[in-house]
Structure formats: structure tokens, C-alpha cells
């Protein structure tokens, strides 16, 4: 009670209220879409934030819609394979950049920087034309190729940042003991690098899971159409019914897994997101 009146507690209260406001702001649209997905169709126009009566019928509609299950399968497959490809290629490149003496180092980092800043809409047309000729239009491969390319910069940077923190001497020791650089990579660096690789994989996955422009430009059917495209083009049960509730339910279905992953691995994601910007 004596000394600094209010300084400690007031400051604490100030930042505490600030924290609460930030949390509310971040979660409102998520709570809102969950609430919409649970409202009965008749209650949609009640202008309330929370549902008066809870129903799961919209989830049933969404899961019985073949278009949505196809999109979900496409999204999981395409994002999964793209992530694997981008992280593998990124891992090799990052290893070379961090550990090996070679002339192309700056060039590759610069190229990655260019790709990161590249506007995807600029190549949508040519890819559309090329993919039609090559038979890649409306296929998984047709989306995997651009996705892995556009996430390579993210993978290369994140991995380079993590690789830099790995104790180099272990790798040197392995090479003194007669291991080739390749063996040193597989047996010494790779296990140490696993957390970084995992982080890069999450960031890349989120990026590909999120993409919309390529998804609507390079696909036309359930063959390769992914979730964001399916949600944007959702048509309701009937032509005259606004598909609001179905869109909301579908949104919740594809958002919840990502939120869970993000919350479990939040430390790593934050470290991965910021590593390039602060150190580079």
C-alpha cells in the first residue's frame, strides 16, 4: 500500500484488460461462424450473435454432400503432398546454403526472395494454358506444382534459420570419422533438424491449405477442387435457399483441425514465422 501507488497493480490491470481485448478480437469471427453453423435455418435472420436453439442438421447436410467430401479429400491429399515435396526440396537447399561453400548461395536466396514476392495472378494465365496442353489441368499434380514452388521460399528460409543453430562440430566430427557429406547429413544433421523441419512443414501446410486463386483457376470439377474453392462455390440444398448455414458448417469442419494443430505447436510456429525476419 505504501510507496508506488497503483503503479504495479494498475499496470498489471492495464495489460490484463489489453490481453482480454486482443483475445476477444481474435476469436469473434470464429465464434460467429460456429454459432451460424449451429443456428436452425429459421433462426438465421434473428440478428443474434449466439444461437437460441442448437442444431447439428447443417453438419449432416455438409457431410452428405459428395462435393464437400471430395474437396476435403483433395485438400488433404494435395496439401499433404505439396508440403512433403516443398519441405524435402527446401531441406536439401537449406543444407547446401548453410553448410556448404558454393557460389550460388546468394543467388538461390535471392531467387527465393523473388518467388516469395511474386504475384501468383501473374502466372495463372500461362499455367492455365500450359496445364491444358500438358493434361495437368484439373488434376492434383496441376495444383501440387505451383503450391510446392510458392512455399519453397518459406521452407528454405525457415529451415536455413533452424539449420544455422545446429551444432556444426557434430557434423564435422562425423566427416572426420569418414562419413561423406551425404551420410553426415542423414545421420547427424537430420535428427537434430527434425523440429525445424516439422515447423517448416506446418507453415507450408497452412499456406497450401489456404490457397484460393490457383484452386479456382486450375480446377473445374471435384477431381481436384479443394476446400476453399468448394466453400466459395457452395450451392445450398435448393436454388432459392441461401447456403449460409452449410458454408458455416463446412468452414467449421475445415477450421477446427487447423486451430488444434496451431494451438498445439504454437511455440514452434511463432519461432518459424519470425526466424527469417529477425535473423535475416
Amino acid at each position, binding site marked *: 500500500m505504501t510507496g508506488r501507488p497503483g503503479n504495479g497493480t494498475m499496470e*498489471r490491470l492495464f*495489460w*490484463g484488460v*489489453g*490481453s482480454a481485448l*486482443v*483475445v476477444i478480437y*481474435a*476469436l469473434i469471427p*470464429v465464434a*460467429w*461462424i460456429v454459432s*451460424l453453423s449451429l443456428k436452425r435455418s429459421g433462426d*438465421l435472420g434473428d*440478428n*443474434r450473435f449466439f444461437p437460441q436453439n442448437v442444431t447439428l442438421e447443417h453438419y449432416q447436410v455438409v457431410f452428405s454432400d459428395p462435393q464437400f467430401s471430395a474437396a476435403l479429400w483433395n485438400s488433404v491429399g494435395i496439401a499433404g503432398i505439396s508440403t512433403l515435396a516443398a519441405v524435402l*526440396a*527446401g531441406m536439401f*537447399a537449406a*543444407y*547446401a546454403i548453410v553448410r*556448404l*561453400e558454393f557460389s*550460388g548461395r546468394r543467388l538461390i536466396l535471392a531467387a*527465393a526472395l523473388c518467388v516469395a514476392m*511474386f*504475384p501468383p*495472378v*501473374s*502466372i*495463372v*494465365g*500461362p499455367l492455365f*494454358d*500450359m496445364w491444358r496442353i500438358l493434361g495437368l489441368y484439373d488434376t492434383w499434380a496441376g495444383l501440387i*506444382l*505451383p503450391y510446392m514452388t510458392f512455399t519453397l521460399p518459406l521452407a528454405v528460409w525457415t529451415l536455413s534459420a533452424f539449420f544455422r543453430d545446429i551444432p556444426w562440430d557434430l557434423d564435422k566430427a562425423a566427416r572426420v570419422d569418414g562419413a561423406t*557429406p551425404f551420410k553426415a547429413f542423414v545421420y547427424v544433421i537430420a535428427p537434430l533438424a527434425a523440429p525445424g523441419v516439422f515447423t517448416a512443414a506446418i507453415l507450408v501446410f*497452412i499456406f497450401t491449405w*489456404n490457397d*484460393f486463386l490457383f484452386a479456382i*483457376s486450375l480446377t473445374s470439377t471435384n477431381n481436384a477442387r479443394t*476446400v*476453399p474453392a468448394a*466453400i*466459395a462455390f457452395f450451392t445450398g440444398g435448393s436454388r432459392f435457399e441461401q447456403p*449460409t448455414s452449410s458454408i*458455416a458448417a463446412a*468452414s467449421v469442419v475445415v*477450421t477446427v483441425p*487447423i*486451430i488444434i494443430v*496451431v494451438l498445439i505447436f*504454437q511455440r514452434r*510456429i*511463432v519461432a518459424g*514465422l*519470425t526466424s527469417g*525476419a*529477425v535473423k535475416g
Partner: protein
Amino acid sequence: MTRRAAEQRLAWLLCAPAVIAMLVVTAYPMLYAVWLSLFRYDLRFPNQRRFVGVENYVSVLSAEAWWQSLFNTLFITVGSVVFEFLLGLVFALVMHRAIIGRQLVRASLLVPYGIITVVAAMSWRFAFDPTTGFVNALLGLESAWLTQRWTAFFVIIQTEIWKTTPFMALLLLAGLSVVPEDLLRAARVDGANAAQRFFKVTLPLMRPVIMVALLFRTLDAFRIFDTVFVQTRGAQGTESVSIVGYNALVTRLNLGLGSAVSVLIFVCVLTIGVLYIKGFGSDWSRRREH
């Protein structure tokens, strides 16, 4: 010497998949776009393909639609990046200073980052919708936000801010943690108040991180597509340049004209990047003089 050469070869070999992917999927299509932009080439009439030189560029640059979309895009970009930066700075300070609940704040900020942009845009569209939404009831208004140009811009920019402020805040938080506590304590002892400490010590030290965050977000915001597509489809004069490009290329299948738009967008992005890096450069040299 041979070991060196072997190392060089291995390095290139390891980089080959990444380099090839970047060349095949971005560099080649970009050159192809430049090539296509010199032709009259409409996929609905593929037989009428012929070389027209810069005619496509002339028609794009003399169309009011292009300039309006460019203005829209710059408006959205500046609007969202400025507010994101200010809000992100506040969020970063809250996370930096909060003793209780820091984890919770960081966790909830990752939610907008992880969510699909289309979903975020849908959620806000429904929230502002006069029949299904809660915003009008909350504010006591009866406004059809997305049917008028400026209110539609407000919803679009608002959505962008919500979705991408977390990225900004996390980068700025990383920048804040670079500032040594000792320096701030010393400034406090010297009699600097909170505002002085923030503007004279913290911000200058964060400058490089701020520059990187702003550059990335500006280029990202300039490419805006998803939110506009979901919320207005470019109606009410809210088209962004990416929407114009998409409509020409994919909706109207006019590859020649659309490619000219693509090339112009690329030039815009390049210009923004160069302007930032120039600003960056002079910033650095000024700091070196000190």
C-alpha cells in the same frame, strides 16, 4: 581443390530440385505471360491468334477499369497495412508486457493466422449482412454494407486487418524482444518517460524488423484476391488488380489481354519492392553515419 569442386557439385545437386521448380513454375510462366501479352489470343477463338505488339497494353492502360482497380488495390493496401502496423504494434506490446495470459494471447492470435482466408471473408460477410448478421443490430444501423462502395471497402479492409495483424504482431514481438531490457532501464533512470523510452529507444532498435514486416505485408496486400472475391466479387467498384487479371484470364479466357494485366501487376509489385529496398538502403546508410 578437388574437394572444393566436389562440395560445389554437391551443393548445386542439393539445390537442383528447388531451383528447377522455381524456374519451371514461376520464371518460365512469367516469360510466357510476356510472350502471350503480345498476341491477340482468346481461347474462345483460338484460331484468330495473331501478333499485335503492344496493342494489349494500350487497351489495358487506356481502360478506366484498370486505373480504378489499381486505385482500389492501393487504397486497400495502404488502409490495411497502416492499421495492421499500428494494431500489430499494440498487440505486440500487450504480449510483451502482459504477465498473466501471455500464452493465451499468443495462442488466440494464431487463430486468424491459421484460418483459411475464404472462411474469414465468409464469416465477416455474414456478420455484416443485414439479414443474417449481428453487426447492424450491435451498432443500431440498417446498412447493407457490401452493396455500397465505401462501406464495402471498409468490410474488406477490416477483414484483411483481422486476418493478417497476427503475422505483423508476432514479427514485431520478435523485434521487441531484441531490445535489451538494460537499455530501457538505463533510459528510465535517466528520467525518460514511457513514451520517450518507446519512441527514442525501442522503435529505432526495431527498425529493421519493422521494415521487413511492412515490405512483406505491403506486397501481400497488393495481391489481394480471396477477400474481394468472396465478399463482393469486385462489384460496387471494388475490383482489385488481381480480380481484373483473373476475370480476363479465367472467366473470359482472354489470354492475350489477361497476360498484359498480369505483366503490369508484376511490374507494380517490382516497383513497390524496389521503392521499399531503396528506402531500406538510405535508412541503413543514415544509420551508419551515426
